[in-house]
């Protein structure tokens, strides 16, 4: 028990060092622009379909589930506003981030893990190529920028899903639906919700890279790296979310 606690703290310490190296190497050349764009493509573009489907279902289900409660209070007309608020503030960022943890963090963990195990990272090292700069900086940066975009995309699709949900029972014009949403949303809802997604993205990338980069020898450690990347990234998303909510609550 004490040993595993000690291990956990050691891991957190190592991960912090690993993450701080990112900021150091981010500003020093060489800049691997091509690899960065490639990672943006893989991490961002290739996740669009998955995020679109889940985003649509989130909006749809949330609307269908919320309706009975609001109907009881005779507040059915609040439905669009309520759905939009919970989607944009909380559900779309967290669910999208969790999906990215599953898809991206594990992918990075497995990729870098197998590169580590098959000595490809060592091969870069001995040809005097900085593997951290080439592999890690590009991936963390791509995640930090792509996850917020995916979340905004999920927000939009989620609202479309919500519209579909409302029209299952009832008939609301799309412009009316939109104007109700815009009325109920404030600018101050968007800012903290967007800021936290950058942190989600950063941690998703960083944890995937950390686990992969530090995979032990042997093929089974590749699976372990991918697996523990997902678990750790998901957990950290909830923790960041909790902190973000508390901070937002303090400020507004």
């Amino acid at each position: 028990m004490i040993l595993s606690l000690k291990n956990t703290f050691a891991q957190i310490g190592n991960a912090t060092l690993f993450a701080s190296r990112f900021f150091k190497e981010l500003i020093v050349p060489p800049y691997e622009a091509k690899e960065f764009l490639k990672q943006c493509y893989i991490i961002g573009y290739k996740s669009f379909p998955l995020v679109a489907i889940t985003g649509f279902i989130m909006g749809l289900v949330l609307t269908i589930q919320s309706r009975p409660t609001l109907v009881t209070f005779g507040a059915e007309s609040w439905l669009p506003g309520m759905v939009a608020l919970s989607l944009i503030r909380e559900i779309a960022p967290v669910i999208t981030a969790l999906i990215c943890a599953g898809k991206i963090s594990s992918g990075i963990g497995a990729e870098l893990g197998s590169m580590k195990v098959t000595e490809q990272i060592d091969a870069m090292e001995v040809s005097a190529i900085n593997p951290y700069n080439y592999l890690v900086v590009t991936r963390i940066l791509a995640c930090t920028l792509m996850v917020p975009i995916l979340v905004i995309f999920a927000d939009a699709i989620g609202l479309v899903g919500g519209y579909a949900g409302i029209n299952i029972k009832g008939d609301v014009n799309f412009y009316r639906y939109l104007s109700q949403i815009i009325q109920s949303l404030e600018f101050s809802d968007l800012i903290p919700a967007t800021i936290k997604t950058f942190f989600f993205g950063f941690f998703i990338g960083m944890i995937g890279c950390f686990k992969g980069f530090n995979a032990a020898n042997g093929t089974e450690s590749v699976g372990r790296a991918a697996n523990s990347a997902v678990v750790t990234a998901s957990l950290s998303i909830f923790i960041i979310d909790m902190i973000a909510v508390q901070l937002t609550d303090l400020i507004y």
Partner: protein
Amino acid sequence: MIKEKKNSDPKSKDKNQAPIIEIKNLHKTFGKDNKVLQGVNLTVNKGEDLVILGRSGSGKSVTIKCIVGLINPDKGEIKVFDENILNLSKSELNKMRVKIGFLFQSAALYDSMSVRENLAFTLRAHKRDLTADEVENEVIEALENVGLSDAIDKMPAELSGGMRKRIGLARTLILKPEIILYDEPTTGLDTITSREISELILDIKHKQKTSSIIITHDMACAKLTADRIMVLKDGKIHAEGTYEELEKDEDEWVRSFFE
């Protein structure tokens, strides 16, 4: 029991310049009690091919990984080109690494890149001002050197073991190193391919005037390439000499390698 440098090695005697690689009293322990290296001493002279023999797990790979700074030894001294590599800063070490080619036991090709990109990536990292055409020419030349110019557009997964080794060698050679460390260049290959690779190693030595350390279990390769052989046992150099000398060594254990 360490053999004295008997009457052997005329090559090193008439050299008065410092050796290219000099390792003194190298120690490395993994974990608590996996004592892998316990005082390795070895030297490589200019233009010399040194073969290291030893059982599986005796620490041959660890030794050469120490030379390029992939593994940090616990104790000892490693001098390459008369500089103690354990004292170098990160950027000095990287400058040194460019002069040292390293062929991995597993070839370690970058799986996500084609053969062309594997070579070009390594080259471009060091010569950022080369034009695309110049890079392409150097890549083609390096592949021709290992006789695999038609594999240029293949992915590593499509290559056979022998091809991977040769592409790995081409990738190592593209930076024109002065020292090459070969980790089992012929293991797992058929006799004919092994022989081709051994001849390639000889060829490189003569054409590019390199000095090398070759780790191998393949005695045919050792016979062809070795100027001098060292046998590693229990974390130390157990015997040293030319192929002909060690073949007739009085120690049965050493002789058993040559049977």
